[in-house]
């Protein structure tokens, strides 16, 4: 099951940077980043590749991360967003999530198959949404971020995030 721990960086933000428990951060953030890309982009192989690229960039730049200026997850997700944007720019045509499930067949239990089928269907529906709404869905349900964290990343207000998500889910539900 995906880890539901609180944002480790925020939890420890009073400590100096060199005392960050990177193992704990890795364990907490890896499933979030991984699922963010699953919801946002699709393609199991690409998801792993993009997750790895995000962590490699963050890892090599971790000495420059300043805890007093941004929470760790905000910083990491900003890197992930940039990695995602670079990837989307380079990819033609845009086909989020559709291919994801085909490649996920290596995990074969029935439950996984049903879940992936739902994800595939969701992917086809979200593909029709504007980029920003796709991003909100990925951050909320893929990365399990709360509305405040999403607001910080997207520049929207917290209430606007809540309202938009409610509206998006209603739209998706009506089309399901």
């Amino acid at each position, binding site marked *: 099951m995906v880890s539901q721990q609180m944002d480790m960086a925020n939890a420890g933000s009073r400590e100096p940077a060199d005392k960050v428990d990177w193992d704990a951060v890795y364990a907490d953030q890896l499933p979030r980043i991984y699922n963010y890309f699953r919801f946002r982009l699709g393609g199991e192989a690409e998801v792993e590749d993009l997750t790895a690229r995000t962590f490699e960039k963050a890892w*090599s730049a971790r000495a420059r991360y300043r805890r007093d200026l941004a929470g760790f997850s905000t910083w990491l997700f900003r890197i992930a967003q940039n990695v995602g944007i670079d990837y989307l720019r380079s990819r033609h045509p845009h086909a989020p999530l559709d291919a994801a499930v085909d490649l996920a067949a290596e995990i074969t239990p029935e439950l996984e198959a049903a879940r992936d089928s739902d994800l595939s269907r969701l992917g086809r529906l979200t593909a029709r949404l504007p980029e920003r709404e796709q991003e909100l869905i990925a951050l909320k349900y893929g990365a399990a971020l709360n509305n405040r964290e999403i607001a910080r990343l997207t520049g929207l207000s917290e209430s606007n995030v809540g309202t938009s998500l409610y509206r998006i889910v209603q739209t998706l539900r009506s089309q399901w």
Partner: protein
Amino acid sequence: MHDEFLKALRRDPPPQFARRLKQQLQAQDAEAKRRSWSRRTRALVFLIVGSAFASGMLVLERQSSEKSEPAQSQAQTQMAAAKSDSTAYRPRSLGPGFVPEGNGATPFDNDNSHEPAGSPANMGFPAQPGSTTEGPAAAAPSTPEQTTQGGLIRSQPPARIAVSPLTDALVLSVLARRPPGKLGAEPRTQTIEADAAFAGLCAPGNARQFDMVVASRRIAHAEFATCRRNGIDRIIESKLGYQALVLTGGRDSTPMKLSASDVYLAIARKIPDPLEPARFIDNPNITWDQIDGKLEYRPIALFGPARATPLHRLFAAALLERGCNAQRSIERLRLADPDLHADLCHTVRDDRLYSEVEQTASLIPQNLWADPNAFVLVDYEFYRENRGQLSVSALEGPEPSTAAFADGTYPLARPIYLYVNLTHLTRVVDAYGLMRELQSMERYARGDSGFVRLDEQDAQQQRSRPTQTLSESDLIPERSVPR
């Protein structure tokens, strides 16, 4: 479909992937350590070889001087005799009863201090924080021309300031209100994009392009790294304030939240054809719901700042361009056809739906009273002062505040930064005074320039370190996030 259903679609990453990635990261660490050791080893070897070379040179030097010692000793004796003659007429080295021989006119007669001839104390400059004695004025050999105070000052060039297009009016208003007669040399300004300005500030070698930069963004990590590579690592950074606009309406109008894209599609002269986005058509929108079905039916009407004003430039850069680049067919033109891109982004419709209005406390409320559906763009200070007459911000995102300007979440605001090449501070006329005046921009800025002063805490922080130099670690979160 509900929250729980969507959350249940998450999946843990495959364990073998998690393990592999962790190993990769650890390997990356090991590689970095190996490189670091390799660099250290190289540095150590270089140090040892360098020391050996220097020692060798010293030994050779000593041997050659021993050979020529007999020839030099005679000359040294003569020089010592001459020196004792020349120092004889220094009154401070002799007793009070000493009377110089002859007329006593010597090159040292005007030298009443112990400072070397080229030092700041002899130049008539006040002692300046951060000034060094390494500058060419201090290090230059004393010549008859330079020993006169005025001559030396006249030999210093005026300051060159690069200003970004958004801030040029502000800087000019500061310069216009400077007390006159500051050593007679007015600084020269050049309006230029921030990228080029920072490149000029950190030009390599001895090329001096700009001494100061006033920009509407912070220097990027990569730009500062370039400065350091060019040997310029002493740069003073001061945050002077912000420029901010607010999109608002009349007090009694129905609140509405618009995106930058909505505003652009409402007031641009040409917009992409919704049916064929690569084609650009005259803007057909006359109500907000034509732009986005979710917006209410309401006639489009917007009052904006007059062209050729700093506020209009801010409006174009922060709102129009942002909304324009949200249209994919236009965004694509940014590199392919920059002129067409700029034209499409910055040209507003000239019918009655968009009109210019002077930013005065009487005209704006009058216009809003006459047209309750209208929105207006005003500068933040105006908005604060006339809050009772205006509604909340109509732009999506946080409400305008100095906190939202500071963290960059409010889209219609830009920070103003001053950068000074500290090495140049002692080389140009009155650079220190000029820097201090720019740092006090709030005292000089005109009301209609959209200038917003820093909040008290930030201002206090800036005041407490007027000459603190920038370090690489100051520039982390925004611009140096790896892309």
